[in-house]
Each structure stands twice: as C-alpha cells, then as structure tokens.
C-alpha cells in the first residue's frame, strides 16, 4: 500500500501556513509608512516589553487548550499574584522566597482548575470561570478592601526593578524573560512525551486512553502549568508597575486568548503551539502600538480587542476543520 495522498503544498496551503505571518508583515509595512516612529528600534523593543506579560500568560493558556481544556482564570490569577507578591514584599519577605511562594499559589489555582475540569470533568468554561471569580476574594482580603497594596513593593527591590524595568543593552529584560519562558515551554510541549500526550488527549481523549495515556493526569498538569505561568506573568506585571493591584490582570485574558488562537494559525497545522502563541502575542502588541501611534481613542481599543479575538478564533476554527 502506497500513500497516494501526499501532503499538498498548493497556494491554499501556503496561505494557510503563512497567511497570518504575511498579514503581520503587511500591518508592519503599513505602520512603518504611515507612522515612521513605529520602526524606531526603541519603539519596537518597547512593544516587546509590553508583550511580555501577555506572552507568558498565553503560553500557559496554550497548554490548557492543547490538552483539550480552556482556562479563563489566567488573568485573575495574574492579578492575585501582583497583589500577593506586593503583600509579601511589603512585609520584608526575601524576594526569591516571595517569587516562589507566588508561583506555588499559581500552581495551586491550576491544581484547582484541574480538579474541576480534568478530574470531575466539569466543562472548562464553567470550572475555570469559578476559579476566575473565586480568586478575586483573596485579593481584596490582602489589600484590606482597597484596590492596591499600600507601599508599592516595599523597600528597594533591585531584582524586581531589573525584571520589570531593566535593560540589557537595548533589550528590555522583560522581553528576554518572556523568550526564555517561551523556549522552555516550547520544548516541553513539542519535544517531550508529556507534551505529545497533552496533544493526544486534546485531539481524541478516547484514543489517547486506549494507548495507555492517562488523559486526566496530562490535562491536570496542563492546568497546573497554565496556573504557574499566569502567576509568572503577574509577577512581571507587578515588577513593571512597582505595585500590586486588584483585578489588574483581567483585561489581559482576552489578549491571551487571541494570541493562542492566532498562534494556532501560524505555520503548523491548526493546533495551538508556543511559537505561534508568541507570534500571536507580538502581533497583538504591534496592533495596539499602532493604534496608539495613530491616536486612536480609548474605546477603539476595546472594539479592536473584540474584533481580534473573534477573528483569531474564526481563523483557527477554519483551519482545524
């Protein structure tokens, strides 16, 4: 038996694989021509710096989606992290310990999501929505009802400043952190058996299980990864702002969703992957930067966000048919 259907590489296939990248190139070209400030290296690096938070959060979400779940709580968990790390630092907890504790809290949130959605098999939209709402509570508890932790991040925090505001040469440290996280995430998802099993569980749960894959466990782990990375993105957020603020992370959820779904249309065949997610996040960052440079009013951003999420999901749905 010969395989008679070779992978087609016609024009349609090219558009499907590289269409999103092409579109991104067109947008850049348009911006470069209409707003010359756009292609200043300093502006481009600034875009990268701004993308870092969403990029890391979206990497986590990529795991949840790849394994057949979804995670609405990432924005909320990130906000909790900003508040919690500020609360710890203000109380003079050593910074490394504070970071680890906050990441552990993120893991716990992910574990709870896994309990609802992987173990008890509650629909992910509902299960993670519960977490999303529930973690608002502790935020207000920590601030004592206010919207911020008083005292910023406490006394001088060189490490936090370095992460959030530092530069290595012209390159913002935050962007480097994102790339580092993405590189590790990419390896785990695409190069390890665990990553392969996550895709399998997301692709066809029954089939994966008959191959001896514990689909519950891998989905659960995906939620935990998602929680940890959400907490990580919150830490970066706190470092950049120099404070912890209640509910600050929620708007990022939409951007992360758009990044993941846009990303699943990049190069590979219609499934979420880390490289694509990062490209998607950068694409979103470029668009927002462009809107700013073009002096778009505030409400325009909301409208645009909605359109992007819709377009991203529609594009990826079209691909995976």
């Amino acid at each position, binding site marked *: *038996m*010969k*395989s*008679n*259907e*070779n*992978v087609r590489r016609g024009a349609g296939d090219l558009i499907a694989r590289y269409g999103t990248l092409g579109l991104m190139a067109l947008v850049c070209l348009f911006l470069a021509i209409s707003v010359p400030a756009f292609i200043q290296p300093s502006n481009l690096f600034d875009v990268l710096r701004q993308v870092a938070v969403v990029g890391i959060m979206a990497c986590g979400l990529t795991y949840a989606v790849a394994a057949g779940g979804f995670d609405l709580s990432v924005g909320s968990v990130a906000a909790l992290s900003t508040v919690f790390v500020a609360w710890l630092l203000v109380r003079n907890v050593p910074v490394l310990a504070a970071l680890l504790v906050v990441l552990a809290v993120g893991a716990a949130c992910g574990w709870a999501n896994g309990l609802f959605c992987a173990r008890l098999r509650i629909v992910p939209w509902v299960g993670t929505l519960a977490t999303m709402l529930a973690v608002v509570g502790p935020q207000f508890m920590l601030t004592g009802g206010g919207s911020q932790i008083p005292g910023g991040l406490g006394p001088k925090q060189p490490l936090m400043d370095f992460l959030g505001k530092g530069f290595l040469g012209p390159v913002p440290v935050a962007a480097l952190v994102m790339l580092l996280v993405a590189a590790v995430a990419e*390896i785990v998802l695409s*190069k*390890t*058996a*665990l990553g*392969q*099993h996550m*895709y*399998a569980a997301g*692709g*066809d749960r*029954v*089939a*994966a*299980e*008959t*191959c*001896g*894959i514990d689909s519950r466990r891998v989905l659960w782990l995906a939620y935990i990864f998602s929680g940890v990375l959400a907490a990580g993105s919150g830490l970066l957020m706190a470092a950049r702002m120099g404070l912890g603020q209640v509910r600050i992370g929620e708007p990022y959820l939409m951007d992360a969703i758009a990044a993941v779904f846009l990303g699943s249309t990049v190069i590979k*065949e*219609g*499934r979420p992957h880390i490289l694509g997610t990062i490209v998607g996040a950068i694409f979103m960052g470029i668009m927002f930067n462009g809107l700013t440079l073009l002096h778009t009013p505030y409400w325009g951003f909301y409208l645009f966000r909605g359109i992007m999420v819709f377009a991203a999901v529609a594009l990826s749905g079209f691909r*995976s048919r």
Partner: protein
Amino acid sequence: MHDPPSTEQRVLAMHNISKDFPGVRALDHVDFSLHGGEIHALVGENGAGKSTLIKVLTGIYACDEGCIELDGREVHVRSTRQMQDLGVACIYQELNLIPHFDVAQNIFLGAEPRGKLGLVRWSEMYREAERLLGTLGVSLDLRVPVRKLGFGQRQMVIIARALLHNPTIFVLDEPTAMLTRAEIGYLFGLLERLKEQGVGILYISHRMEEVFEIADRVTVMRDGKNVASLQVAETNPDQVISLMVGRQLDDMFPKTDLEIGPQLLAVGGMGDGALVQDVSFEVRAGQVVGIYGVLGSGTAELAGMLAGDRPLAAGKMLVRGEPTTFRSPHHALRDGIALIPKDRRDEGLVLSFTVRENMTLAGLGRWVSAGLIRSREEKAVTRDQIEALNVRTYGAEQVVQELSGGNQQKVVIAKAMLSQAQVYVFDEPTRGVDVGAKIEIYRLISRLLQGGAGVILFSSELPEILHITDRVMVMFRGRMVLDKLTQQTDADELLMYALKGEASETDVS
C-alpha cells in the same frame, strides 16, 4: 471445558468473567482461553458482549467478577498500560488514532522513545517506525497526518502500533470491517506469520467465511454468555450461526419483485476531476442499483458526490427530472437523497446524543408543530425503529456511545430511513452487523422500495450485490466499466471487471 490438544501453551485463561452496565449484563460468567500459536475466533450477534470481553482483557473495563490468568499466573488488571507491558496488544473496533498526528506519532503514541529529561527522540522514532512498517511490508509516508489516509492505511498504522511491543497475545476486534479483499488477504498472511511465531491471536469477526478460512477454534457468544467453544475443523458455518442466534435462519436475502417506477435520479458525465470520471446512470423508483469496485476505484468518492459531500467538477445531476447541484449533505437531503455513510463513528452519529436524538435528527422537521417537537410522536417512531432493526439498547434514551458497534450502525440506518428521502445511498450498510441484522437491513431496503424509493448500494460483498440489486455497475479507476442487469451477470464477471477493467478473453467462458 476441554483440554487443549497437543502441547500448545495456554497463554490466556479468563475464568467466570461478569460485567454489568447500567441496565444490561454485558458478560455473564464467561470462560475463555487462548493458546500460543492459535487463531481463536470469537463470534456472536451485535451486542453479544465480544468487545466488552476484550476490553476487560485489555484493562479498559474492570470486570465485576472473575479472574484473568496470563501464562498460568493470575493478574490483577489495573490499567491498559499494565496489560500492554504484559504482552497484550489489541486493535479495537473503533480505529483509535489521533487525526492530526502523523503516522509515526500515532504508532508510538504513549510509547515514545525518550532521552534524558523526557525529551522525545524524534529521529529514532521515525527510524523505528520506518523499520517496523518495513517488516510489515507496508510503505507509508511517515509524516502524513493520519486523517489524510484511507481506511486500509489507517488500519496498518494501528497494526504497526499493536505489534510495536512484540505481543504474545494479539486481539483484533473486527479488523476487516473496513478493509478490501486484497487488504484482508494481506492481513491474513500477517496473522499466519504471527501464529508461527507462537503468538496467540483472538479474532472477532461477523464473517463466517473468514472464521472458517483462518481460525483454529471458534467461541460463540450469545447474550453475554459463552455458548460454545469448538474446533473449527469439527463444525460448520450453519452450526455456528444457529448457535449465535439461537434459531435457524432460512432466508438470507429476501427479495420481492417490484414494478420499476419513474426515474428519481439521473447523473450524466459526472466527475470530480480526479478520482471519478464521466459516470452516468439513473435510479428509478423500486429499483436497487449496485455499484461495485475495489478500494481506490472511485466508489467512495462517487458516494460522497451523490450525497453532496464532494463537489462535482463535471457533469449534471437530475432529481426527478430537475437539474440540481448540492453543495452539502444538507442540500442533498433537501432534494430527497440520503446517504448512509460507512464510517459511522465519524460521519453518521452524534455519539453524545441518545438513540432517539440521533434517529430523528435528520427528519426532525416532521415532528415539529409551531416550533415545538411533538415528543410523544417522536418517541413512538423511535420505538418502532428500535424494534424493526432490533437495536440492542435499554431504551431510546441511551447514549449511542454506549451501544455496541453493530448497534450503532443500526441507529445510523434508522436515522436515514426516518429522513423520508426518495433515494437512499447505502455505503456498505452491512459491515459489522450480525447475520440477523443483515436480514433486517435487507427487509428495510425492500420496504423502502415498496414505499416508492430508489436505492443505490455501494458494497464490496459480491453475494450482497448479486442478491439484492436489480442493476449492477462496476467501477474501475474512476470509470464505469460495466453496467448490466444483475440477472445477466455473475460474480466472476463482476470481479474480473473490478480488478482489470475488462473481461480478458482467456478467462471468459
């Protein structure tokens, strides 16, 4: 139970196995044994419990009672992985592949070669996959996602996956249901080789001729019980069938002669620009048109085109004399053409729906008044269909996912019948259904004909084609090479045309 002949090793013994599902006792104190170097066939009607028995063996289901011995030692089955490590490999009735994974990834699913840090060693994986397929004598592009492969090729991927672990027990649940003759021959060769190597093979099939061709022993199940285990050499198909159904079956192919009515569907010069070329024929009321061809001859594509699943590149289609084009199965159905697809799991059913919901999905409009479903009527109709097709289910509200494979097939057929089409396109309707249901399906076809419908039957079973069609056509490399009244042809002629595209002078008598 009788002792095994000769010195063969008993590699598997299942004692007193029982398994209950809500509402049914799927296995009722079943004993079963398998020797190394033996092919043991397991037969029984749809829902008899065959698949459940092997799922207990492979660790998918835990049994409620009984014990399993491998090589004389009792094992406590905890997971599929454990049984796999103990040398039990299985090909399930449903092809379990991850559609967007490629061939090699699917073969190694759950058993990826890993290096340090759990990293997958991709190059080793592709090399091994290549080697493995080589020993099976199959050449496949390892990097093609399996959703782009045909059934036969997918089956090979699954077989390669099963053989990856050098099993001592190899279980196949209806592996031939989707295969062509040539592919079946190939599979049998492979099984003979494994048998010589001492592998114990458990083989489930509904096809008697297969059982008598390759099996050494046959075990018959009925209603969750083992009713007999026999040496194949000491029995015959009739005995096995009567053990299976618990009664004698006489009329395998009921056929009533009907007036041929007006033309319902005509196609002229139809083609898709690649695999189907210049096909013309017509279907009349009360007529069964059979289309026969080997895999790759274009029959599958033609079926897809007739049902609106595949675009036409050339030719025209007339429905009751009116020209029409379909862009989707929905359009086809609106014009009164219903397809009963062969891949029931992917195309035919919504697995999470109940039997009733599935059956009435296509024709729901009929039970709606003022926007509301008249559920009493809907339920009554569903009950009738369950009875007519003898679907083994504890009720109309059972989720179809829980039905046995053959019973799912019956639901697909019931669904199409309720869509009130005028032309029914059956694509291998009797694959995977038991003998009793086969007859029921033929009866239903003849009932459809009496109701003034026309039927197009794609089938790879020559007896079926010869017995229930009025007209038969043979496809070869995308073209119709033969079109005759069924009475004027025979199996040899059909086969000749299907394989060669013409009758070779020397062979025709």
